[in-house]
């Protein structure tokens, strides 16, 4: 049930090893990303609401180290 509901959900993920605290994600998607005191992103949720999808795409594309990724959730949820 949970899986089917999440099937087509877009999810935001951070690869913590690739992330080098450039911080563009928090500028481009402040609704979903804040920065900790060291400049590393904290996600305020993983599921991207439809109205923010365009902004999330832009943020993922802007990440210089390709650490922010927008993925479609696995149907297994």
């Amino acid at each position: 049930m949970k899986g089917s509901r999440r099937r087509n959900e877009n999810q935001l993920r951070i690869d913590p090893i690739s992330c080098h605290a450039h911080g563009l994600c928090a500028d481009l998607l402040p609704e979903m990303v804040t920065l900790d005191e060291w400049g590393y992103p904290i996600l305020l949720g993983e599921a991207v609401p439809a109205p923010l999808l365009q902004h999330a795409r832009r943020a993922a594309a802007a990440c210089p180290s390709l650490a922010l990724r927008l993925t479609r959730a696995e149907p297994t949820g």
Partner: protein
Amino acid sequence: MTHTLALPPEHPASAGPVRLLSGWARTRQPADWVEHSASYGPPPVPRRTRGQGDEPLIALVDQAGLRGRGGAAFPTARKLAEVRSGRGRAVVLANGCEGDPGSNKDHALLTLAPHLVIDGIILAAQAVGARETMLCLHRGDPLVDSMRAAIAERPNEPLLPTVVEVPARYVSSADTALVNFLTNGTAKPTQRSPRPSQRGVRGRPTLVDNVETLAHIALIARYGPEWFRACGTATSPGSTLITVGGAVRLPGVYEIEFGVPLGHPLRLAGGPARLLQAVLIGGLAGRWLPMPAAHELPLTEEDCRAAGGRMGIAAVTALPAGACGLHTTARALRYLAEESAGQCGPCMFGLPAIADDMTDLATGAAASEDLARLRRRLGVIPGRGACAHPDATVSLAATALDVFTDDLPAHLSGHPCPPGSAFPLALSPHHPDARHP
């Protein structure tokens, strides 16, 4: 420096099961190949029974309910099955690094019953269809020579492991770090997904099991799941080796059945040497529990989780009254911060920050707003690293603030414990390269 191994001077039969340590209990000697063969005979080949679809050893391990002994308590049969069904020829890695300085059980096992572990490696490799097996040990560890000698003692068999030396750092023995090291030469953890059982060494499905887990497989293959389940609990069956350290009369490695109260291994270790205020459970990167309140806590992963914690690696370190829990924790946090692989920001910057905060708190240099900042940091760091190292370090700090909460007012008002009041948590170094708090 010589290898100092803490072992039970005696293990009375009334104390509970003696399985992995039965050879030691009988002969008081490490079991060489002759002794091992005389006691156990050759490893059996589990036979497929009629109507049983699964690989026979995996079915036995599943019925036995064996869970991993490396700290995560993951169901071993599930991992075996995942590796077996993976794409490509599988690889088996036996993890004997024992990176946590509060644990000595794997060293005791590899010293006393090396052939039980090697049997387990061969059986697991047969079950998952591997042709390549490796035993991972810390570089410079005396076990490297003793295990190579043990392997050389055996008749030539196809699946005997190669001993691989891994850099002697805390996080280099995480399963993804071993895979990364054997694939790219970098002994640092990687992302948790895909799991090594799906894509491990050189992209091959890879079984990474703790050496004690493999030794239990060797016993289950011989004596069966019913025998295995004759001790322990329904969800955590069997026995486990446990390191008992700190302020007990006979620190060492003991064998207990799962589900016994926490006070039981303390009794096996001769009882408290002094009045205890707390115990650290799960190794150096573990969690504090208050004493005597935790005395009756049943030792299983499920019971510890139900109590809001984790069991982790089977290790208990007793902190005597009079030692300062905050000073002690600060030293452990400093060590764990320095052992960060330095890959993920929240770990690289967060762990030194909380180690500084705890040091300030312990030495009386912190005010209540500093304590608030520490609590805020503890809330922000977990779940944001590639491996579990930052989360475990945060748990150590957070449980210290809970368990030693009565000590906070004095420390915050300029009356800290004196500098010498930290209690040594680490056991004797296994080998000269290891760094210890």
